[in-house]
């Protein structure tokens, strides 16, 4: 920033600062200071009531060496990401391609596919919990047509995470669809025409024009999906609470447990920072790798 050299510029600067102040102060009070405090707290033992006690890297050491559940929830979260992210991206792309067609009432389809995004995740979880119900659920009813024996979706270690990932995919596909749609509509028509002149068919147009031209959008969607999926909480909390045998407990629900069930704020803060570092490094690697596949 240039140093203000007369009173008018200084006034301008002050006016500008005054304008950003409300937002900045809010950010400071509700984000920056708590984030900083959590870093400090992560090196302490604090139960909210007795004064914090400084224990160095004790919390981190406990996480990595003495807490088997930490590794379990980390693996659970990775499993969720591996199931949900490809699903939500592919489904979103297919939906975007679909509603990008000149079909009758496409606005209605766009509206419908976007609905899950703006629906309360609590309501979504409750409805899906009933859909996955072992005895009366729609999904088991449907499968029984094909003589599939009834599956105890949310109480079976093998299927519980699949169920939660399904809800994750269903509820975020609409948002990613809008992003892909914007990306699709930004592709210049003449590229398709050029491809047609060169004799390319529908499939060729998709692989040689659409996919490469969409890579910036794909990149953005991928980065955001990873960030969001690593923080999965509401569906876990509502649908299973981490059951069965903690196989659906995610990192964030474990942070919640540590902070607000066991009142171990130091542990919870340390976990949050570990999660931050994981997400940060994944994002960093992706930005480093984008030269390899993203076309601008």
């Amino acid at each position, binding site marked *: 920033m240039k140093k203000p050299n007369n009173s008018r510029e200084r006034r301008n600067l002050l006016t500008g600062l005054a304008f950003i102040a409300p937002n900045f102060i809010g950010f400071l009070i509700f984000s920056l200071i708590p984030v900083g405090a959590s870093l400090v707290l992560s090196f302490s033992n604090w139960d*909210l009531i007795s004064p914090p006690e400084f224990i160095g890297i004790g919390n981190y050491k406990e996480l990595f060496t003495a807490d088997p*559940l930490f590794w379990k929830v980390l693996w659970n979260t990775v499993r969720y990401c591996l199931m949900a992210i490809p699903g939500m991206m592919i489904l979103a792309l297919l939906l975007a391609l679909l509603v990008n067609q000149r079909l009758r009432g496409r606005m209605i389809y766009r509206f419908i596919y976007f609905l899950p995004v703006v629906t309360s995740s609590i309501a979504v979880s409750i409805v899906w919990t009933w859909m996955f119900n*072992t005895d009366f659920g729609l999904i088991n009813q449907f499968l029984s047509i094909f003589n599939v024996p009834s599956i105890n979706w949310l109480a079976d270690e093998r299927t519980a995470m699949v169920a939660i990932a399904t809800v994750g995919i269903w509820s975020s596909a609409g948002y990613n669809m809008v992003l892909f749609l914007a990306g699709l509509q930004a592709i210049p028509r003449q590229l398709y025409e050029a491809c047609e002149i060169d004799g390319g068919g529908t499939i060729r147009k998709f692989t040689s024009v659409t996919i490469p031209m969409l890579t910036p959008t794909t990149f953005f969607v991928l980065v955001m999906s990873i960030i969001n999926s690593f923080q999965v909480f509401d569906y876990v909390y509502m649908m299973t609470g981490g059951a069965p045998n903690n196989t659906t407990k995610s990192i964030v629900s474990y942070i919640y447990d540590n902070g607000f069930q066991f009142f171990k704020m130091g542990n919870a803060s340390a976990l949050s920072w570990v999660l931050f570092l994981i997400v940060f490094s994944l994002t960093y690697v992706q930005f480093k790798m984008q030269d390899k596949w993203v076309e601008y």
Partner: protein
Amino acid sequence: MKMKKSIKLLSGLLSVILVAGTLAGCGGKSAAEQSSAGVSSGTAVQSTGAEATAVQSGGEEKTLVAVMWGEQARWDAQKKVNDAFSQKYPNLKIDLQTLPNDTYWTKLQTMIAGGTPPDIAFMQEMLTPTYQAKGIMADLTDYMGKDTEFKKDCMPEGMYGPFTVDGKLYAMPTMTFVNVLFYNKDIFDKAGIPYPDENYTWDTLRDTAKQLTKDTNGDGKIDQYGFSFGAWPNFIFPYIWANGGEFVKDDRKTSVLNSAENVQTFQYLHDLIWKDKVTPSAAANKSNAFDFANGNIAMFDLGSWNVAVYDDKKINYGITLTPKAPNGGRVVNTFPNGWFIVNQSENKEDAWKYLAFNVSEEGQKVAAEGKVGMPANTQIAKSDAYLKSSTTPGVDLGVTLKSAEISRGAYTTSNWSEIESKIWPEFDLIWTKENADVKAVLDSVQTKLQAKVNEAK
């Protein structure tokens, strides 16, 4: 030029207002919270001046903040108790803040950490060691000794046990619940089977349940189960104890989970689900469509607070003692609740008056009529105010008195909520698996449980 200047002034002003608004917004909220948390309960600032003199003179009005979890029926009854209390002590008012069960503990801790502690708070037996270790529960022994009107023998000595740590009482038990066997009379009448009674054993329970587990509409799926239980600690413990087993021993330091008795107990419960198939497999599932209130479970081992719930829902039910274990043993779980004085409160003397009033015959009678559970006070528990409080014909609350005589609580540790959240879910390997190896699961859980118990303060 002048115009421009005034616009700039205006915009500057506006942003100042915005900022001030934001700040006032947060400030205002906490001020409101403070006032709702009681005029004289919180910070040093509040207890200066008029308030401080009021404490001494005892003449001016004072509001004590009490926090409580529960259901609407219980809160309504407690408000009636509070009204009766304010009639006896006209200068003391109770501000009862009711909270949902799952956010109660978080809210309680943040109130204390935030410098606006309540004066009185509700407590249950399992978390007493946890909160006592945090130093937020005042020792009641002295208050009890000084209060000449208070009769310690107004309730059985055993009631105090769960709230006593190292010989000192930290909460005043006001009521308790026990688990009893609820049965749906309509289902039994339809099948022409006599109602369950005190002679039931684990075997008779299973055999009756088999007769009552049915596919009523012939679609190949069972839509009425004979029996169900909750796979939560409080409801599994009585089976363990009745069969001569233990979870954590009375030293609160040794876990003895994988004993032969416990293997038998867990195997019995597992088999009810997977071998005899008389209990819905989703017993531990959040989306359980089988529920006593839905009329598709014939017998259900439940807490006696459900008397109020099923009375309201007009279900034709009865209650009896839970069945006896093969060795003839029968133990039920007691769920005592009580009030404690928050250590950080500045109104402990007045808070004690409230605690004492709650267990007086006067206070207990009001609570009993409101169906808040079995009164701690022996006289009231044996009176019609309690025994005849169910509105469902034939429901005899004398069963809960009999159950209370054979009831006990679990020996918990200061990190109980961690055990419940980290260790307990491992039993899902029994509840959710048809071919569960019960012994192997208990062996593995025993190791983890002992390690957690060792971490306790």
